[in-house]
């Protein structure tokens, strides 16, 4: 991927009072991709987001938008006009929903017809056409969130920046809004930067991940890279100890799916559509190994795997196995000894369809 980034930053330093709250050497956001900023509270995710959007003054550093350095005030206005920020709180104005969504378009002095078109389109994106005439302050939390997202998308930004946009929503609403956002990002190919602190959201929405801590970016790469090789404990905890396998749903029937992963079929519970790209997440403690292929077993998934590595932990062994895809398994020390496992052995690996946690990609 050797294209030039849509938005990039070099040596950004932002201070609040005398305290340095942001110190970022380099960050690149590529066209059409979604970058997740992850990290604990106070790591500087929001600050970075707002600085990238040209909304916070920086002490030093450079921001490039479309390969052009943002230096003059008119560059800044240009950046702001092309970057839409969605804040944690909906921040709707005290007027009707459609007027709220039209606000950004009105700033651009567009014609009425153009405004109407874009507003209708944005409302349809988030399935809130029926709310158009409602007063913003009568909306529920989920509805307000949709309106604030629609307002940002209505101006057809080149890049959209979301600050922890799904906080304080109840789980079903959150799920539905993430679904919509995912579809829209895929459909419109709008570049996005999302401050997130949920691993599942990150897996679903992001192509790339930048991990932040104490105002710095400490790891950056594709989602797969960062999740497979977490560089420190925080990230390891964030991404979980799970094995994450990317695949595509091949068959989905009566709550059981067949997911193709590197040429193998994994059975998992769920009802996503055929063709849906997914991640299969597996916890190492849910994986059983045996010397021979077990017969008459309830586990739907049985594979042969070669032991790549057996690492002794405090109370158990961690096995890394290659079944055509790489997974990890935890087994107790007595089991390890009884089975007499050595690196290079081939073992049968089994796990239940219910142990596979499937996430849409």
């Amino acid at each position, binding site marked *: 991927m050797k294209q030039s980034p849509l938005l990039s930053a070099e040596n950004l330093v932002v201070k609040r009072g005398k305290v340095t709250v942001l110190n970022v050497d380099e960050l690149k956001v590529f066209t059409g991709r979604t970058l997740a900023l992850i990290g604990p509270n106070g790591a500087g995710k929001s600050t970075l987001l*707002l600085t990238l*959007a040209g*909304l916070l003054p920086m002490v030093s550093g450079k921001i490039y938008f479309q390969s052009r350095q943002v230096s003059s005030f008119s560059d800044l*206005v240009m950046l*702001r*006009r092309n*970057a*839409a*920020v969605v*804040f944690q*709180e909906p*921040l709707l*104005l*005290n007027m009707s929903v459609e007027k709220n969504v039209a*606000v*950004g378009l009105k*700033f*651009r002095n567009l014609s009425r017809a153009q405004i109407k078109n874009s507003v209708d389109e944005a409302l349809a994106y988030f399935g809130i056409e029926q709310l158009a005439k409602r*007063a913003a302050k009568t909306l529920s939390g989920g509805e307000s969130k949709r309106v604030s997202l629609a*307002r*940002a998308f209505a*101006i057809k930004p080149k890049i959209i920046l979301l600050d922890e946009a799904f906080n304080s929503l109840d789980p079903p609403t959150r799920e539905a809004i993430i679904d919509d956002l995912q579809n829209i990002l895929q459909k419109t190919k709008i570049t996005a930067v999302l401050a997130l602190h949920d691993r599942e959201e990150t897996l679903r929405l992001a192509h790339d991940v930048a991990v932040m801590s104490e105002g710095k970016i400490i790891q950056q790469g594709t989602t797969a890279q960062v999740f497979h090789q977490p560089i420190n404990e925080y990230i390891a905890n964030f991404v979980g100890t799970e094995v994450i396998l990317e695949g595509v749903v091949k068959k989905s029937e009566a709550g059981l799916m067949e997911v193709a992963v590197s040429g193998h079929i994994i059975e998992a519970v769920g009802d996503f559509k055929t063709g849906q790209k997914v991640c299969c997440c597996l916890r190492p403690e849910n994986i059983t190994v045996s010397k021979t292929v077990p017969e008459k077993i309830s586990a739907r998934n049985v594979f042969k795997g070669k032991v790549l590595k057996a690492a002794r932990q405090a109370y158990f062994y961690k096995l890394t196995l290659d079944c055509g895809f790489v997974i990890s398994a935890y087994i107790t020390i007595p089991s390890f000894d009884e089975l007499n496992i050595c690196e290079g052995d081939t073992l049968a690996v089994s796990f239940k369809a219910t142990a596979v946690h499937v996430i849409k990609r």
Partner: protein
Amino acid sequence: MDLILQGIIKAFHLIVSFDPEVISITWLSLKISGTATLISLFVGVSVGVAVALNDFFGKRLVISIINTGMGLPPVVVGLFVTIMIWRSGPFGFLEILYTPYAMIIAQAVIATPIVMGISLAAIQNLPPNLRLQILSLGASRLQMVWVLVKESRLPLLAAVMAGFGGVISEIGASIMVGGNIKGYTRVLTTATVMETGKGNFDLAIALAIILLLLAFTINFLLTQIQQRQQSR
């Protein structure tokens, strides 16, 4: 008891018969206080918004001064304005002492800090990220300010009510800089004082009732607008 009853009956008569003198006094009061309120709205909102949106050294001191100004004693304002426009004062050349213009100036000085203080608080009460949100949607600075002012329209209406209520019922400054000249600078409050002094309770009561009605009507109308906005 008879005095009050007589007074009220006579007052009622004066009002319903549209007594020309009462009408002209009322009209002048409205014009002077209305103009003063408009000026204070313009100056008060601009400065209030500017102070609220900018960070500068001594901002807290400025806000304290504005808040103190909200309770400025009218006689102090009257004295100050009188000195300024006194024949030998710095603005004496304008020759506006004892004219309605002087009264407008004095009343505007009284109302402006009230409007300023309320609009400043209103803008400061908006969510801190709202400014950034509006800018990020592509607003120019002027557009951003306009959206914020519109967003605080309810407290701003309250500011207008407080300002107008303050100046229409004010007497100290009006009598000092206006002088209560019949048919020229005589307004409801100054006339009421004078008629009471002369013992013309009927006329004084009539003027007092009109003053109350006026204040009530204006506030009633603004409250209507405010509540309609509120429930929308």
